[in-house]
């Protein structure tokens, strides 16, 4: 695999593209600011503002993308940075800045494009919500923050946007805060990600302490560039880790928090309490991908110190990357397992998102940036497609989310069905025609060649099988069989279908830029020319790999279809698998009881600690405060007595004197203006007379 | 030859003065100038009246005066004869002296205003260093005479009319001054002659009139409004609103004095449009470089008459305001706008040459004038009227 960083010929030259880059996040944020000031009934205006600003951003990012593309075509891989000092403390200074390189460009286009589609979709989905304007305010604030994450060239700036993203996700999950469940979910999401972010912050601080800069690339002085990395490798951090890998791990903890990797995944499924467009945008396409993107950004750090063979292939791996891989693979399988046994249409998708994110992480860990990012992009498209499809299903079934209460919808909502099917096949990685297949294959291939261990490969394959299985289960529950709902289902309005169609198209087409025949995407990201070689397929073992994955996928599809396909069932009767193996089923349905575990340990501990603190406040500190107050009151009493008996007497005497004196003087004050005027005039006369006398003498 | 045509009046004067002993010449020149003014402008007044009556007639779809002379153009003469031969009525318990002094004072003051207006190249009676100030001083003094008229005739209509007139004139004097101050800022002189000369230059044959600059244009709009109010023309003609108070402050006047008031009003109109012409429309300078051969005074008078026609047109078109609307308009809209325009002019001055200042200044002005105009003229600003006495 080709080393990033080295392959690049860094080019700092300012260009308009990088000059105006800051506008891309700025526009939506400004828009949200304006929307925040709008009145509730001004729905159209707010929607127009949000969509308009985002489409402007889309145009700009397309422009930037084109710029990068041109630069790449002309051989020099573009990496333009614009840095400036934010805080200057003595000699130390904290710099911020933004960057334009293939990675950022691709992400920009993806975020803007998917975001725009989802915005349009939301106008339909939220049409009946009275907080329409608030929704769009949050939404475009989110878009801005996310784009900020993408273009950040400084870990600090990235962190700021990162937190902003977290905030908006909190706001949007809790958008229907009337629902206690939604409020709780929002809180959960916020706190869980916070845990990750604390580690992230630690890593950041450490990095700053070590390298003295938070910029990624800064003409050789950036923290992601060879010079500083060398320094990081040199410093040991205990436990046999180098500072580099330790910081890498800390940052990865943050990423894991956002991307719902294994220990911190609990918030993501609950986040489905939010409106569906939100789930599609934030918890499928963009925000959860931010973690992956972060790892991709700091990849040089993660990868620092790996030995290279002559051909630039990485021999072995670093600690950080190994951890990433294991966590990713683990999450992939684990979440897929849970997804099998869920009945809430959105929850299934949520868990599949978690597992797919696992795939991405694993891909990053084993295959490098391109592999992970490719899956990120394709996943963004088909997963948001799936979510919006789910949204339209829910919309059509009158806010029904339980797949056991649906069925046979392929008649009632054909468009949704077709697009959804496309998305599902893409997610399963159906051979050849769907993007998911290629991106997943990329990961599997990387796993196959991974020099450290083979088991991740098998885990991922198993994950693929499960994926195919649960998606088929869901689809057959929702669209086939007999309709088990109460109210009549109906197709969604075209404004909601249009994005679906567009996304469906991309869910199929995007695969083409990542086939081994023409690995354009990887080439683009890694900044070397893309060779077109029909021999791509006949790489040693690649055909075999493709065969395996196809077989696995088909297996999953078939099995699931056998079990669930087109059976007339009732909503009440238990799931087929449940009949087969009840114990495992309950375990899965209970999501391995992770939440309960946390509840029993962490949360219980905090509750206890809170009680202790409360007791301390009431008894100890409170007591002291009251005692002090009492003392002062007594003192005040004393001084009051003193005043009354001694001081006041003297004052009264003085006042009487003054009063009588004033009475004397007040005779002159006749209260008539002209008298005063006369006195004045007399004074004038006297003064002038005196003057003259003095001047004469 | 064009020079001769241009300076014809001056040549005439010098020729006439030539007959006198040298010691008297300058004084005689001044006297001649005064005579000229006293002769010309009342003539214009006569033309204006007939113009107005016929113009209004056309606008209101009737003929207007058409009996005396061909197409009734001799109407003013008839009017003059009539008003001179009429009996002069003084109300019984009117304050005779003041009642008599008021119209005289008015006409005198108005005539004095003309002294500083350059009606042509080198054609100004007194080229005062602070001519503009003088003009405004005279304009301010008219208020006194109006008050005298209103108060002395012991008639509630007259008094109300006078009060309205004075209040209105004071309120609109402020924007009038402020909008002219912009010009002073730019020219750096209070002398009207200098102001005209500053505008008498051409690029690509187009003149440098101040109305063709952003601030100048804005100032001109405001000046026009204020001037209309200052001369009590409709839509600001409350002081003599026939429908409300019979004829305002000169209800109790008849015959010659009435004629004087009438004269005074129209002269004020002429002189204020003359000032506007001088300040914004380049005075006696010709609108195109290639028309320079036309005598300058022709340009001046044609511009003045043109603006008079506009005034007539406005009168024929717009309905009358209400008192409180009038005041609101003066203090809450016109005044702030002129102040803003002042700042814009300063900005213009300090941005130095180049296209940038054109863009900036016009942008600001357009933005504020349109925006503030819309907001400021909303309905609620003209709510129900509230009266304040000190009873």
């Amino acid at each position, binding site marked *: 695999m080709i080393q990033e960083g080295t392959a690049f010929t860094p080019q700092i030259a300012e260009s308009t593209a990088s000059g105006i880059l800051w506008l891309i996040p700025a526009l939506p944020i400004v828009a949200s600011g304006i929307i925040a000031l709008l009145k509730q009934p001004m729905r159209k205006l707010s929607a127009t503002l949000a969509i308009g600003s985002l489409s402007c951003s889309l145009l700009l990012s397309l422009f930037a993308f084109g710029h990068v593309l041109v630069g790449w075509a002309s051989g020099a891989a573009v990496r333009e940075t614009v840095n400036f000092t934010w805080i200057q403390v003595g000699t130390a200074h904290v710099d911020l800045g933004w960057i334009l390189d293939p990675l950022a460009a691709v992400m920009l286009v993806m975020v803007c494009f998917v975001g725009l589609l989802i915005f349009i979709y939301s106008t339909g989905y939220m049409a009946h919500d009275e907080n329409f304007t608030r929704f769009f305010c949050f939404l475009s604030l989110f878009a801005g923050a996310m784009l900020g994450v993408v273009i950040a060239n400084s870990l600090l700036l990235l962190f700021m946007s990162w937190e902003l993203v977290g905030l908006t996700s909190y706001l949007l999950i809790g958008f229907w805060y009337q629902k206690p469940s939604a409020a709780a979910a929002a809180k959960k999401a916020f706190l869980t990600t916070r845990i990750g972010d604390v580690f992230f912050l630690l890593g950041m601080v450490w990095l700053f302490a070590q390298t003295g800069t938070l910029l990624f690339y800064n003409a050789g002085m950036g923290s992601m560039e060879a010079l500083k990395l060398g320094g990081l490798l040199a410093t040991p951090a205990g436990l046999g880790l180098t500072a580099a890998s330790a910081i890498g791990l800390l940052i990865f903890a943050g990423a894991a928090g956002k991307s719902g990797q294994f220990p911190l995944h609990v918030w993501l499924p609950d986040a489905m309490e939010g409106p569906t467009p939100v789930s599609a945008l934030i918890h499928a396409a963009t925000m959860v991908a931010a973690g992956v993107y972060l790892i991709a950004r700091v990849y040089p750090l993660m990868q620092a110190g790996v030995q290279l063979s002559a051909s630039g292939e990485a021999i072995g791996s670093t600690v950080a990357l190994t951890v990433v891989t294991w966590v990713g693979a683990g999450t992939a399988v684990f979440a897929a397992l849970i997804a099998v046994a869920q009945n809430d249409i959105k929850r299934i998708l949520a868990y599949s998102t978690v597992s797919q994110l696992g795939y991405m992480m694993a891909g990053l860990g084993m295959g490098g940036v391109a592999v992970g990012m490719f899956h990120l992009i394709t996943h963004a498209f088909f997963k948001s497609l799936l979510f919006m499809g789910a949204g339209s299903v829910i919309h059509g079934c009158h806010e029904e989310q339980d797949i056991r209460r649906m069925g046979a919808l392929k008649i009632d909502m054909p468009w949704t069905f077709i697009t959804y099917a496309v998305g599902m096949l893409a997610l399963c990685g159906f051979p050849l025609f769907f993007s998911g297949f290629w991106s997943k294959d990329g990961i599997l291939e990387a796993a196959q060649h991974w020099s450290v261990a083979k088991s991740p490969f098998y885990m991922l394959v198993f994950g693929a099988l499960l994926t195919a299985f649960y998606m088929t289960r869901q689809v057959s529950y929702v669209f086939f069989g007999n309709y088990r709902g109460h109210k009549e289902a109906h197709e969604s309005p075209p404004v909601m279908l249009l994005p679906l169609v567009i996304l469906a198209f991309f869910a199929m087409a995007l695969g083409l830029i990542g086939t081994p025949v023409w690995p354009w995407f990887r080439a683009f990201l890694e900044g070397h020319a893309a060779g077109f070689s029909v021999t791509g397929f006949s790489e040693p073992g690649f055909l075999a790999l493709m065969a395996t994955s196809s077989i696995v996928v088909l297996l999953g599809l078939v099995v699931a279809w056998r079990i669930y396909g087109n059976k007339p069932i009732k909503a009440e009767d238990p799931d087929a698998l449940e009949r087969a193996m009840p114990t495992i089923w309950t375990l899965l349905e209970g999501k391995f009881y992770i939440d309960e575990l946390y509840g029993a340990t962490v949360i219980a501990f905090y509750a206890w600690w809170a009680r202790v603190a409360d007791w301390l406040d009431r008894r100890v500190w409170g007591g002291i405060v009251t005692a002090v107050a009492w003392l002062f009151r007594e003192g005040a009493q004393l001084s009051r007595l003193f005043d009354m008996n001694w001081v006041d007497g003297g004052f009264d005497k003085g006042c009487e004197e003054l009063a009588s004196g*004033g009475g004397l*003087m*007040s*005779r*002159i*004050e*006749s*209260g*008539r*203006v*002209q008298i005063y*005027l*006369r006195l004045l*005039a007399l004074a004038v006369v006297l003064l002038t007379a005196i003057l003259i006398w003095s001047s004469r003498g | 030859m064009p020079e001769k045509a241009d300076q014809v009046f001056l040549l005439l004067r010098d020729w006439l003065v030539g007959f006198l002993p040298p010691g008297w010449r300058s004084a005689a020149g001044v006297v001649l100038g005064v005579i000229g003014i006293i002769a010309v402008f009342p003539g214009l007044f006569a033309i204006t009246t007939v113009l107005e009556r016929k113009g209004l007639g056309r606008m209101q779809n009737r003929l207007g005066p058409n009996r005396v002379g061909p197409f009734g153009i001799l109407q003013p003469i008839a009017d003059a004869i009539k008003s001179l031969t009429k009996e002069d009525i003084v109300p019984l318990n009117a304050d005779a002296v003041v009642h008599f002094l008021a119209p005289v004072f008015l006409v005198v003051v108005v005539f004095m205003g003309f002294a500083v207006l350059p009606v042509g190249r080198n054609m100004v009676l007194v080229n005062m260093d602070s001519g503009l100030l003088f003009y405004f001083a005279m304009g301010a003094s008219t208020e006194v005479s109006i008050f005298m008229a209103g108060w002395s005739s012991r008639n509630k209509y007259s008094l109300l009319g006078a009060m309205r007139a004075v209040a209105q004139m004071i309120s609109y004097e402020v924007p009038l001054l402020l909008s002219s101050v912009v010009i002073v800022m730019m020219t750096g002189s209070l002398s009207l002659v200098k102001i005209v000369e500053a505008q008498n230059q051409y690029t690509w044959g187009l003149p440098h009139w101040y109305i063709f600059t952003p601030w100048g244009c804005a100032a001109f709009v405001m000046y026009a409004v204020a001037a209309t109010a200052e001369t009590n023309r409709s839509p600001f003609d409350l002081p003599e609103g026939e429908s409300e108070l019979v004829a305002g402050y000169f209800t109790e006047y008849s015959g010659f004095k009435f004629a004087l008031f009438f004269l005074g009003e129209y002269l004020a109109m002429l002189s204020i449009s003359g000032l506007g012409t001088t300040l914004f429309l380049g005075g006696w300078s010709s609108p195109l470089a290639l028309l320079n051969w036309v005598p300058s005074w022709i340009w001046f008078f044609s511009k003045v008459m043109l603006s008079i026609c506009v005034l007539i047109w406005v009168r024929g078109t717009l309905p009358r305001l209400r008192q409180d609307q009038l005041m609101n308009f003066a203090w809450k809209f016109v005044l702030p706008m002129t102040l803003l325009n002042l700042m814009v002019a300063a900005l213009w001055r300090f941005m130095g040459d180049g296209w940038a200042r054109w863009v900036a200044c016009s942008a600001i002005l357009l933005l504020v004038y349109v925006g503030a105009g819309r907001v400021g003229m909303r309905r609620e600003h003209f709510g129900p009227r509230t009266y304040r006495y*000190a*009873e």
Partner: protein
Amino acid sequence: MTVFATPLAGYLLVAALLFAIGLAGALTRRNAILVLIGIELMLNAANLNLIAFWRYMPHPEALTGMMFAIFSIAVAAAEAAVGLGLVISIHRHAKTTDLDEMNRMKG
């Protein structure tokens, strides 16, 4: 027809006379407004003094007296506005502008 050795003295005397007249008015009339009128007269007399001195003293181009006069005109305007406002509000409360009846502030 020169009565005084210098023209300045004439102006000064006229100013003094005006001042005295104003003062007399302010002291003897009962109506508050007329008192204000008297004060205006005095102020103007002072202005006349200032201008006269500016004209006849050395260095008129330094403009000292002139400036003094201009500023005092401005201040006088302010004074008149406030004074008359006061008179009006007093009239509103006491229903009179007669100073002999306005002695409510006697000590």
